[in-house]
C-alpha cells in the first residue's frame, strides 16, 4: 500500500478562548459560584479550555431568561422566526470549517466526518425547520398549534453540535425558548453556537446554554419552570429523568441507547454490505446510539462476509482526528475508553473470539482499535449491552424468521439494517423489526426530513421531520 503523507486540517482556523462562561440572556457570564471544569482534546489529552460549571442559581437565571424571552419569541409571526433560523443556518455554513475543526478537537471524531457529515447535517436541520416555522398550521397538529414554553434540553457528547441542532431547531421554529446543557466533555461547539446566535441577532434569552456535569443537567430537567424536557443519552440517565419528570405535567422526549441488528442475507450485495457493516459500527468510533453493533449474518455467507470484513478493516486508518485521511479518531473520554475495554474484556472471557487488524495507536490520548467478536451468542453480554465504541459482535442465523427473532430479542429498538437484493424480503423483514429506523442496503443515513426515535428502552418521541414538531407543540 502506498502511504498517504500527513494531510492535517489546520488547527488555527478556529480560535479557542482559554475560558468560557455560561450563555445566559444573550451574554457570556461566569458561574455564580465560580465553578469551572476543563475540556480536553481526547486525541492528546491537552486541555483546550476552562468552562464554567453552572450551579442551581445559574440554571435558575437561564430558565428565567428563557421565560422572559418566551412571550416575545412565541408571538413573532412564523415567517419572522424563520428568518432567524435561516440566518443561523447560513452562518453555520459560512463558519463550517471552524466548527468542524472545533468539533474534531473537542470530540475526537475524524475531520472528514465532522466536515462531511456533522456540519452539513447541522445546517440542513436548521434550514429544514426554518421552513416549517410559518407552516405549523398545516403540519397536522390542529389549525393553531401553540408552543409549549421553556424547553430544557440535555444532549450527549457523540454528535455535540448535531444533537444541539436536533433539539434547538424544532424548538425555536415552533416558538419555544430553550435552555440547553451540552455534555461535559464536549461543550465547545455549543458555546461557539452561542456566538452564532449573537451574530444572527437572535433576541436575548431565546437560546441559553449552561455548561456543566450531570448535576447541572439534573437540576435543569427538575426545574419547576421548565415546561418541556428533551434528552438524548444513556438509558440509565433517561430512566432517572423519566422518574424526575413523572407527575409534573412536563412534556418529555427521550432518545436513548441501542443495540441495533445489522442483518446480512445471503443474497446481499456483499461488497456494499461490508461497507455498510463498517460504516454501521466504526462511524464516529462507534459512539452512535443507532450503531449497527450486532451483525447478524446468514450462515451460508458467513465465511465470505467475515473474510471481506476483515480485509476491509485492515484498510481503516486510525489516528489524528485532524488528518483528512483518518477514518477512526479518538475515543471521547477516559471514562468511555474504560467502559469499552471492560465490556470487550468480558466478551473475551465469555468465550467470544476477538479480532482487530494490526494497527498502531498513538501513545497519548484515548484510543481503541476497531474490534470484532465472532462466535457471539445472544447470551453474551457484548450481544446485549450497548458498548458505544468500535466493537462489533458477529452472530449468525439460518432463516429470515430466526434473523427477525434475534434482531428483536433486545431491550432496545432504535435502529436496524437489512441487506438483500430482494425487495420483497426487505419489506417483509422491515415490517417485523421493532426498531424506530430500519435502513435497507445502507446504514447510518440521516436526513432532517426523516423522523428518528426508538421503541422500548431506546426511548420515546420522534426527532426530525414533521413528526419532530409534535414534541414542541401543545
Amino acid at each position: 500500500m502506498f502511504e498517504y503523507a500527513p494531510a492535517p486540517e489546520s488547527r488555527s482556523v478556529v480560535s479557542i478562548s482559554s475560558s468560557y462562561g455560561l450563555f445566559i440572556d444573550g451574554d457570556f457570564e461566569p458561574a455564580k459560584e465560580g465553578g469551572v471544569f476543563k475540556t480536553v482534546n481526547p486525541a492528546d489529552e491537552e486541555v483546550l479550555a476552562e468552562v464554567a460549571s453552572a450551579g442551581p442559581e445559574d440554571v435558575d437565571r437561564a430558565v428565567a431568561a428563557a421565560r422572559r424571552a418566551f412571550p416575545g419569541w412565541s408571538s413573532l409571526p412564523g415567517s419572522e422566526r424563520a428568518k432567524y433560523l435561516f440566518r443561523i443556518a447560513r452562518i453555520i455554513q459560512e463558519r463550517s470549517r471552524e466548527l468542524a475543526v472545533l468539533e474534531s478537537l473537542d470530540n475526537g471524531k475524524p475531520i472528514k466526518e465532522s466536515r462531511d457529515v456533522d456540519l452539513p447535517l447541522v445546517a440542513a436541520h436548521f434550514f429544514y425547520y426554518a421552513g416549517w416555522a410559518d407552516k405549523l398550521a398545516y403540519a397536522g397538529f390542529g389549525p393553531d398549534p401553540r408552543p409549549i414554553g421553556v424547553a430544557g434540553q440535555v444532549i450527549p457528547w457523540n454528535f455535540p453540535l448535531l444533537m444541539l441542532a436536533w433539539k434547538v431547531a424544532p424548538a425555536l421554529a415552533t416558538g419555544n425558548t430553550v435552555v440547553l446543557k451540552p455534555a461535559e466533555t464536549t461543550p465547545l461547539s455549543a458555546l461557539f453556537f452561542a456566538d452564532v446566535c449573537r451574530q444572527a441577532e437572535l433576541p436575548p434569552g431565546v437560546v441559553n446554554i449552561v455548561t456543566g456535569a450531570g448535576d447541572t443537567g439534573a437540576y435543569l430537567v427538575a426545574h419547576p419552570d421548565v415546561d418541556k424536557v428533551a434528552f438524548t443519552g444513556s438509558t440509565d440517565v433517561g430512566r432517572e429523568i423519566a422518574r424526575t419528570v413523572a407527575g409534573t405535567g412536563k412534556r418529555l422526549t427521550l432518545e436513548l441507547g441501542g443495540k441495533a441488528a445489522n442483518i446480512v442475507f445471503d443474497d446481499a450485495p456483499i461488497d456494499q454490505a461490508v461497507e455498510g457493516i463498517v460504516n454501521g459500527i466504526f462511524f464516529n468510533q462507534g459512539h452512535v446510539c443507532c450503531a449497527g453493533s450486532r451483525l447478524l449474518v446468514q450462515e451460508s455467507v458467513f465465511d465470505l462476509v467475515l473474510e471481506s470484513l476483515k480485509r476491509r478493516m485492515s484498510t481503516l486508518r486510525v489516528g489524528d482526528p485532524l488528518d483528512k485521511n483518518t477514518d477512526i479518531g479518538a475515543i471521547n473520554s477516559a471514562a468511555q475508553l474504560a467502559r469499552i475495554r471492560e465490556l470487550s474484556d468480558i466478551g473475551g472471557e465469555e468465550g467470544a473470539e476477538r479480532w482487530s487488524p494490526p494497527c498502531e495507536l498513538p501513545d497519548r490520548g484515548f484510543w481503541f482499535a476497531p474490534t470484532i467478536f465472532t462466535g457471539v451468542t445472544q447470551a453474551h453480554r457484548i450481544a446485549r449491552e450497548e458498548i458505544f465504541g468500535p466493537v462489533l459482535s458477529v452472530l449468525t442465523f439460518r432463516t429470515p424468521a430466526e434473523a427477525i427473532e434475534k434482531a428483536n430479542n433486545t431491550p432496545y429498538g432504535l435502529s436496524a439494517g437489512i441487506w438483500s437484493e430482494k425487495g420483497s424480503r426487505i419489506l417483509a423483514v422491515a415490517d417485523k423489526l421493532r426498531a424506530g429506523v430500519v435502513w435497507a442496503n445502507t446504514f447510518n443515513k440521516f436526513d432532517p426530513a426523516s423522523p428518528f426515535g426508538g421503541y422500548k428502552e431506546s426511548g420515546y418521541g420522534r426527532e426530525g421531520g414533521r413528526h419532530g414538531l409534535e414534541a414542541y407543540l401543545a
Partner: protein
Amino acid sequence: MTATAPIGLSDLRSYLHGLPGVDKVGVEARAAALGTRSVKTSSKAKAIDLAIRMVDLTTLEGADTPGKVRALCAKGRRPDPSDPSAPAVAAICVYPAMVPVAAAALAGSGVHLASVATAFPSGQAPLEVKLADTRAAVAAGADEVDMVISRGAFLAGDYAKVFDEIVAVKEACGGAHLKVILETGELATYDNVRRASWLAMLAGADFIKTSTGKVSVNATLPITLVMLEAVRDFRATHGRQIGVKPAGGIKNTKDAIKYLVLINETVGDDWLSPDWFRFGASSLLNDLLMQRTKLTTGHYSGPDYFTLD
C-alpha cells in the same frame, strides 16, 4: 495457454447471475468517499510518477497519420524533454493501421505497443474479420491488443458467443497481452459490469478495460471499483491475477490519483504497477507533467511549456 472455464458454457448464465449483486447507491458512495482522500507532498510525487508509468498514451482518430503517431511515440518515450527524470509511459495505443509506424518509433524503448482490434469501437463485424484484425496488429508488432466485446450479444444474453469470441481473439493474440474492453457505458448497470468482467476473465483476458472512449459514458470511479473487486475476487478463487484499465474521461492528475487511491484501498499493492493497472488517456499526461513540474519547482508553468503531441 487457452483459457477454460471451470464450468460448462451452458452454465455461464447461472454462474454470472449467481455473482453477488452490486448496490448502485453503495458503490457510488464508496467511490465518492475514497475520492476525498487527501494525497499531498511526497505521496503525491510518488503517485504522479506511478500514474505516468501507467499511461497508455492513446490516439484513435480517423485523422491519425504516421507523423502524428511518430510524434506521440516520441512523447511516450520521453514525456518531459526538459526533465529526463520523468518516466516513460506504459504503452502507446493506436489503430492497427498505425502499428508498423509505432513499432518502428518505439523500437528498443521498453514502451509497450498496444493496438485496438476486433472492429473497434463497435465490435459489429463477423468473427473472422475480428480475428484477421487482431492477427494483423500482432504481426505488425503490437504486443498488447485491446479488443471490444460484442455488447449486442452480451445484452441479448448470448454470453456463450461473447465468451467464444474472447477465447478466439486470445488465441489469435499469440503471445500478445489481451485487454478486453467491456464498454461499460453501454452495459448500463453495475451488475452487468460485474458479470462482463467475470465473463472476460473466465475467457482468458489478461486485462479488463472499461471503455473505448467513443461513447458518452466512459471510465468512472464506481465502475472501476466494481472491476477492481472483480479482479480481486477472481484471483482469490481462480489464482490468476488480471489487470484493470479505465479509459476515457480521465483528464487530470486529481482524477488519476483518485484511481490510485481506489486501487490502494481495494486491491492493494499487487495492482499498483503498470503491469496490472493502466490509464487509457491522452490529455491526462500533460496535466501529470504539469503537476510534476509544480511539485519539483514549486510553481506552475503554463501549458506552453509542455509539448502538445
